[in-house]
């Protein structure tokens, strides 16, 4: 019996080690090096939320002069909040300058941990809430802006006048994006019908895929969706040759023939400001928004999709309108 217990503990340990393998340990840093640690709910290559942060950190690293000047480590796949909390505390203990909790579900853990490390700066997204803590930054994306642009494009390109949306849970960033998308469609062509489906999960690829099949059966010839489980929906769109509009990361690579454009989060815009504040002694207390105007959100057109020039011009005009304030997006 003892032997078996020992075996199981080894097995459990091994699996924990393996599941944490995304974490890269590096040598202790020289003092002038800026060190960032980030905890994310899904994989760094999820083509969605987590990848948007990973890609931004890679860009910041290049900007700041490589790993000698800017070091970052990450724990991805932290969909269990308790594990994420342990990782956040661990990184804070290791003296990172900035510890990023990339997921709204990590909020209450961060609220508990941050006061124990007054000299460490924390960032939490996507939210606007810093809990009134002097060492927590908050960041969010105005995802309705890119959603609106995608909606304008989708309404222009749909022939069946039916558009399908696959969402995770009706809250936060996802709801904001979907509401913006609907507003964009309605502003362009109120006769288009937008069918929205929230599947109740960020990870259920099978249900996202079936939701897409449902939209297609209901007549949709253009679809969008948000969060990491949409890869299942994109797969179905690809098989049925239905247009797809991406968000969070650039999703063109998955289906080059049908992805028209993606709203991509460029968190480096927000990160740059945080880093410069931290270097000047401010560790938190501010909230940031990535949007089209500050370049924190970029509409990336898929070069492989033959987008009609007029439609593209309309999209660019819409972006301009949102940036200069002439287009006001009214959300429900």
């Amino acid at each position, binding site marked *: 019996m003892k032997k078996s217990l020992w075996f199981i503990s080894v*097995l459990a340990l091994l699996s924990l080690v393996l599941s944490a393998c995304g974490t890269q340990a590096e040598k202790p840093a020289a003092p002038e090096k800026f060190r960032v640690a980030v905890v994310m709910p899904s994989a760094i290559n999820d083509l969605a939320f987590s990848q948007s942060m990973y890609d931004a950190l890679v860009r910041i690293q290049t900007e700041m002069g490589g790993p000698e000047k800017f070091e970052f480590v990450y724990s991805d796949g932290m969909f269990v909040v308790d594990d994420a909390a342990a990782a956040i505390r661990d990184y804070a203990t290791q003296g990172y300058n900035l510890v990023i909790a990339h997921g709204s579900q990590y909020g209450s853990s961060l609220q508990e941990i941050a006061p124990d490390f007054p000299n460490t700066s924390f960032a939490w997204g996507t939210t606007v809430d810093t809990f009134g803590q002097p060492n927590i930054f908050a960041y969010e994306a105005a995802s309705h802006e890119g959603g609106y642009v995608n909606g304008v494009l989708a309404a222009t390109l749909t022939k069946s006048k039916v558009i399908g949306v696959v969402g995770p*849970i*009706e809250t936060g960033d996802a709801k904001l994006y979907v509401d913006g998308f609907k507003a964009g469609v309605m502003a362009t062509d109120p006769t288009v019908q937008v069918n929205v*489906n929230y599947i109740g999960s960020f990870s259920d*690829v*099978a249900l996202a895929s079936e939701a897409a099949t449902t939209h297609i059966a209901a007549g949709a010839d253009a679809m969008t969706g948000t969060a990491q489980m949409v890869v299942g929906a994109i797969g179905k769109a690809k098989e049925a040759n239905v247009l797809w509009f991406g968000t969070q990361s650039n999703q063109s690579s998955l289906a080059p023939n049908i992805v028209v454009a993606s709203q991509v989060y460029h968190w480096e815009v927000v990160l740059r400001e945080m880093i410069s504040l931290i270097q000047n002694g401010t560790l938190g207390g501010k909230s940031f928004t990535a949007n089209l105007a500050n370049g924190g959100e970029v509409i990336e057109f898929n070069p492989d999709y033959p987008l009609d020039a007029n439609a593209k011009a309309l999209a660019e005009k819409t972006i301009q309108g949102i940036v200069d304030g002439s287009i006001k997006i009214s959300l429900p």
Partner: protein
Amino acid sequence: MISDLFSVTVLIGILASGIRLATPYLYAAIGETFSQKSGVLNLGVEGQMLLGAFAAFYVSLNTGSLWLGLLTAMLVGALMGLAMAYVTVNLQAQQGISGIGFYLFGLGMSDLLFQRLMGTVETVRGFPKIYIPFLSDIPGIGEIFFSQNILVYGAYLLVPLAWFVLNKTTLGLKIRAVGENPDAADSLGVNVGRIRYFTIILGGTLSGIAGASLSIALLNVFQQNMTSGQGFIAVALVYFGAWRPAGVLGGALLFSMVNSLQLWMQVKSVPIPSDIAVMLPYVLTILVLVATVSKVRAPSALTKPFEREN
């Protein structure tokens, strides 16, 4: 609107998606039925599915052969089963705990391999739909039942096959005997350990196919943690189905049909909050379970390690 739900298109849509959604549950839960019938609770199904899904996807992507992918998934599932069998039969480990260990191993390992070997989400062209001649031309019925891919057909053929093996063969009798009273079975010369090795490895193989049915037949993508708890639902379905293949089929279909119904309810703007809609499959399954409490009890030796008395 609610009235929009009652159209032929919607009805066909609901049934066809329900049939598809139930497929991975059927493979995994039938496999689990075999191991539970022999007295072994395998909670590692989810991990076996994930590794199977990855193996099938990766091999199909790189060799272009879906069959080779499926075969690899079966092999990987069988190996996971072999390890599980060693831990439960030889080491006599506490099954609940070791199963969770295997789940975590599968979850971590599939993610690690995905990160290291692939690097990004990709798609494959999965098993195509097979239109059964004549039958697929029947309006409605044809689209629902006879226009699916091979792994969907396989899942439904597995149900009567499993029933036959469990109830009409000597092997099935031995499996049931080992699960009910291993001491008696042992005294009659049945090799308890060997039977359990067989059922656990069979369960692993079927879980591997369940994973493959997602990654190379139904969704045709692989993503970290893509099974999203389906393996655990499969274990619950075995209890729901009272350890009978037909019961498992009923449970899987009920859960999947209600799930596809709620997808259509949202698409047709039936005015209920999405949070309530996504709860429906779970709530209804629980209600049916409560309403039809059966007198069938679990195999007596379930979760009990067998130790031969000298």
